[in-house]
């Protein structure tokens, strides 16, 4: 069969073209012992102690290449981060591709290479995968699902129910970078900005945090819906009030300016490489300094505490006077952001 430069329906047919795609594109870029055996299912080592963390996420971002990353690295970071903030050490991930007929194979190679590099940087192995092709118009270029498994050490218990009054809330860096980078790289809204996505793995940062304080109560990575959504979910799940301080929240000036122009609340804007952690007040200092030593946490800051608001509610001390309610976003601020 003649090789083409773009994806055809044959690439998803399970025949020779599918095989070529696996051998030419995926295997060389993802290679590891488990994957290379090409079994129908991956056989994995289990942890001797502790528990497993398991997470799945689908990625439909538009555009597929954006300032600071692409859909491939994002699919790895997204799943790695979900495992990491659950307290797990990410080990294995699966990837499922839905490709649109006509996607240039060069684009797929670039995305797969970026996934391979991201997996290597995170210390995870891509151990199983699948590819389907849909007719032109049946999907937009490429959709990726990734699932991951991580090992949770015995001493670690990330759970909103463990949050106590007075716990400190630490944010690992500036918010809104990903959402604004995507928004400004979309067609139809031409803003000149230097903002790049913060898409990055957080497992190294989490490792350093848990070494400093294994008793971290809760962590979450504020992706879609931004910091406001994460804090509201945690406030509801823990039945505690949360009070944050507007002045303490790190935001890049460029991001804030674009939010002002477009009337967005930066607290609702998506991130792809940040986490928010709830730690016992007395250990907040050592967790914060451990975070600041990591590249992914160099701008970390204590942004608030548990208490000072009605249970289940998030309030913010504004730079003006008084407090205001911080609500989760209603509807979709921006579709297809991850």
């Amino acid at each position, binding site marked *: 069969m003649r090789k083409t430069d773009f994806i055809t329906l044959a690439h998803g047919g399970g025949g020779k073209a599918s095989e070529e795609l696996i051998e030419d594109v995926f295997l060389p870029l993802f290679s590891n012992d488990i994957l290379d055996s090409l079994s129908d299912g991956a056989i994995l080592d289990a942890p001797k102690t502790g528990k497993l963390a398991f997470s799945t996420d689908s990625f439909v971002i538009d555009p597929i290449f954006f300032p600071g990353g692409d859909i491939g690295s994002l699919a790895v970071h997204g799943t790695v981060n979900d495992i990491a903030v659950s307290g797990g050490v990410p080990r294995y991930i699966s990837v499922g591709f839905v490709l649109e007929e006509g996607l240039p194979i060069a684009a797929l190679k670039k995305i797969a290479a970026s996934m391979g590099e991201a997996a290597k940087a995170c210390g995870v192995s891509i151990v199983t995968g699948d590819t389907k092709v849909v007719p032109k118009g049946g999907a937009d270029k490429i959709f990726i699902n990734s699932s991951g498994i991580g090992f949770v050490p015995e001493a670690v218990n990330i759970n909103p129910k463990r949050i106590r009054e007075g716990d400190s809330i630490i944010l690992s860096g500036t918010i809104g970078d990903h959402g604004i980078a995507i928004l400004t790289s979309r067609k*139809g*809204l031409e803003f000149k900005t230097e903002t790049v996505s913060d898409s990055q793995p957080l497992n190294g940062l989490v490792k350093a945090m848990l070494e400093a304080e294994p008793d971290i109560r809760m962590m979450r990575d504020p992706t879609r819906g931004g910091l406001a959504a994460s804090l509201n979910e945690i406030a509801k799940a823990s039945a505690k009030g949360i009070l944050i301080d507007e002045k303490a929240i790190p935001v890049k*000036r460029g991001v*804030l*300016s674009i939010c*002002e122009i477009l*009337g967005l609340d930066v607290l609702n804007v998506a991130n792809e490489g940040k986490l928010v952690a709830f730690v016992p007040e007395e250990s907040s200092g050592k967790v914060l300094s451990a975070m600041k030593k990591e590249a992914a946490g160099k701008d970390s800051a204590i942004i608030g505490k548990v208490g000072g608001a009605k249970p289940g509610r998030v*309030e913010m001390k*504004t*730079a*003006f*006077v*008084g*407090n*205001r*309610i911080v*609500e989760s976003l*209603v*509807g979709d601020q921006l579709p297809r952001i991850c």
Partner: protein
Amino acid sequence: MKYMTEFRDGKIAGKIARAINSESNKKIRIMEFCGGHTISLLKYGIQDLLPDNIEMVSGPGCPVCVTSKAEIDAAIELSENPDVILASFGDMIRVPGASMSLRQSKAKGSDIRIVYSPDDAVKIAGDNPDKKIVFFAVGFETTAPVTASSVKLAESMNLKNYFVLSAHKTTPGILSALLAEEVRLDGFICPGHVTAITGTAMYKPLTDAGKPCVVSGFEPLDILSSILLVVRQVETGIAKTEISYSRVVAPSGNLRAQQIMNEVFSPTDAVWRGIGVIPDNGLKADGDYKRFNACAEFDIEIETDEKETKGCICDKILRGLNKPTDCKLFNSACTPEDPIGACMVSDEGTCSIYYRFGRKGKTVA
């Protein structure tokens, strides 16, 4: 950062608030015209700084909220035409018409594009010569000049497939309508950006009727200082137009924007959601630009009979007669996730603002 923090200074706010508290004696009701004003009032807790004798009432200045169901239904009907691409600002997509919203129409297969500027709609027209592109134009004098400019752009590109479904509304007519309301209003915080286009002459009927008018920006210090200016007028028995937003607004307005609006549009009757028909209060493409009028092109007539959903009091809220917290549906059947009335849909709608920022402290009813 320039203009991002100076007007949110808590210390200066305290000073102005103290001046308001010491100078204000009369029991007064001030209408803040714009949704943007209401957001600042609630988001920054300004209401909590005001003495009990000052009541702030939200006005009809949310373009999304005052767009009539019939206008939305007309947009939906056009979007269902397979030859049409409907271009709209994002805010309009979720607003319920009589039976559905544009978002639902999009889900059912209509080609609806969200644009940030009408010029983007003109670009879509240029890129799709075999389709008819209809821009669903909403807003007051702030957006109308931009729509007019897009029509002139399409004309200069000699595009035959660009049309405007105008739901534009103008401010002078609504001001007179508010004067006729049964609720007593003692002063107005007037729209900053509309006035930047129109100039201040349109407030004369209000000041003639003894109502102080202060044209205000949208930052918390803008609003507070505007309230102080209204209070001073009320207390001394003066009624005149003042501008507290002089960094943006000139008394004569923006003459070029006025001119381009006048060139492209002529006045027509407009249906305000909750208020009804106001004669000569809308804008339609006319004269040399008549061919851009979507109503003429597609032979559409916009109904003028508006009925609100049972229980919804958006009409009264838009006229300053009631507050969102007076509504039985507020925060029960009607929420931003599942809005019944238009005031809950737009981010600048009074009910949505109360839902997001107003459910705490003194502002909880």
